[in-house]
Structures are given as C-alpha cells and as structure tokens.
C-alpha cells in the first residue's frame, strides 16, 4: 500500500510548514512559509522521538536516576513517507529511542518512563547517511548531581531502516 494522501505538518525548528504530496505517482516534500508560499524542495524530513524518565524529588532520594532523557533522530525521504507512512516512521524512530533508553538503564526503567512526543525538522541536503539513526541520552544519577549540573551523556549512531 502506498501512502499518497497529502498532508501538512509544522517544522518544529523554524515554524514553517512541511507539505507532503504526490504528483504523477512521485512523492514530494516542500517547505512553505507562513503565507503558504512554496519556499523550497526538501530532500528529507527529520523525525525526532523523545523518551524521558523523571522522578519527583522525594522519590529520587531512594531511587536512581532522577532525570534521564533520550532522543532518536532519523531522516526520511519522500519515498519512505510514501512507502511506509508517517505513523510507521514515527513508531520506528520511537522504538529506537526506547531501545537505547533501556540499553542504558535496564528494562525496569520502562515502567517509570514515558514517550514525550515527536518533533519534525526539515533537511534540504542530508550530509549524513540516511540509513542511520542518531541517539543521544543525558542523565543525572542523584539529586545532588542534578542541582550541581553534573550529568552524563551518551551518544551513538546506529544503522537504521524503515523496513517492516
């Protein structure tokens, strides 16, 4: 099944619109400004998924970590949007964010973590390879670390595909 219905989403980096549509069987992504004029053709849409873990200060006295957040960023071509659909693309990126979050903190953190949301960005020319997902996580182990601004971070680039 090909996803040929056009849609418009907001580019969360700039506030412009990103419009997806198909013409003569070919998919296109265009950026439009606030007056809805076509500004430029996009090669990629960037999808970012966020997972977060947060304790209250009282709970943090007993448990670790107090604050942890992971973002997964991946690029999707117009052809990917047409083939898989945005829902599938978002779900795949979120899945990788969860995988990385659990890899760092263990599976038990799943019960106290939550999906925060997705962001969409625009990429005209992707210098990076499209078959990769960029993962970044930050966390503080203790309340004292959080207040002192002492935290740790971990980033990774992993191979990625939107295949079913």
């Amino acid at each position: 099944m090909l996803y040929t219905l056009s849609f418009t989403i907001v580019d969360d980096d700039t506030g412009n619109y990103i419009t997806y549509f198909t013409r003569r069987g070919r998919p296109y992504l265009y950026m439009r400004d606030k007056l809805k004029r076509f500004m430029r053709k996009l090669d990629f849409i960037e999808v970012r998924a966020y997972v977060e873990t947060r304790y209250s200060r009282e709970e943090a006295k007993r448990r670790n970590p107090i604050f942890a957040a992971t973002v997964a960023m991946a690029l999707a071509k117009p052809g990917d949007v047409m083939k898989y659909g945005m829902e599938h693309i978002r779900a795949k990126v979120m899945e990788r964010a969860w995988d990385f979050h659990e890899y760092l903190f263990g599976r038990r953190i799943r019960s106290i973590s939550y999906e925060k949301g997705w962001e969409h960005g625009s990429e005209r020319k992707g210098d990076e390879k499209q078959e990769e997902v960029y993962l970044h996580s930050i966390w503080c182990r203790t309340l004292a670390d959080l207040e002192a601004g002492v935290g740790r971070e971990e980033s990774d680039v992993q191979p990625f595909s939107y295949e079913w």
Partner: protein
Amino acid sequence: MYSRSAMSGRSHILKIDVDIKMDDALVDLWIATRKRIAEFLGFRIVDVRYRYTRHGMHFWIYLDKHLDAHTRAMLQFMMGDDHRRCFHNFIRLRLNAFDQFNALFGVKVYEHRG
C-alpha cells in the same frame, strides 16, 4: 564524530511555548512586548511565527544574530517560555545537550509503555 544537531545553523531562532491561546489583539501585544524585551537586552527581532496547538501556542522568534546555547536558554526564559520547560532547559544546558532537547513537540504524547 557524528555532529548532527537538532538546531544546526538555526541558533538565531528562539522556541517559545505558551500554554494559553491568545486572540489576535493579544498576540500583537505579546509580540510588541517581546520586541521591547529584546531591544532592552541588545537584540532585534526580525520575524515571529506562531502556531496554535492543542493546549496553547508555539512561537518561533527569529533574531538578528546567532547566539550560543546559554544565551538562547536565558532569552527563552525572559521571553515568557513555559517555566517548567525552562527548568528542564537549564538542566539540559548544564548537561551540554540544550540543542538536542530544546523541543517543541509537533506531536505530543504522554504514554507509558511499562
């Protein structure tokens, strides 16, 4: 080293989350006051874009110069960003991850998977 940043080349844009929906007159007044705040702090606003969301509004404020992460976090706070978001932005700033986590969610969920 992989160097993709969520805001690469866009360090002149402030992202403001406001948790109320304003009418046109109030939006105009809000933007005018933000311009005065920016002038007071030595910056100039060249463009403002906004969208209505389910719970409020998102603003993108374009400044005349590129800024470092610390100044942007401070300016977002001064411009009336959601205070809880500011609190987390300052944590992320201290962890050197402000650009990656300064998010305005186009699609927002609060879903547990546990």
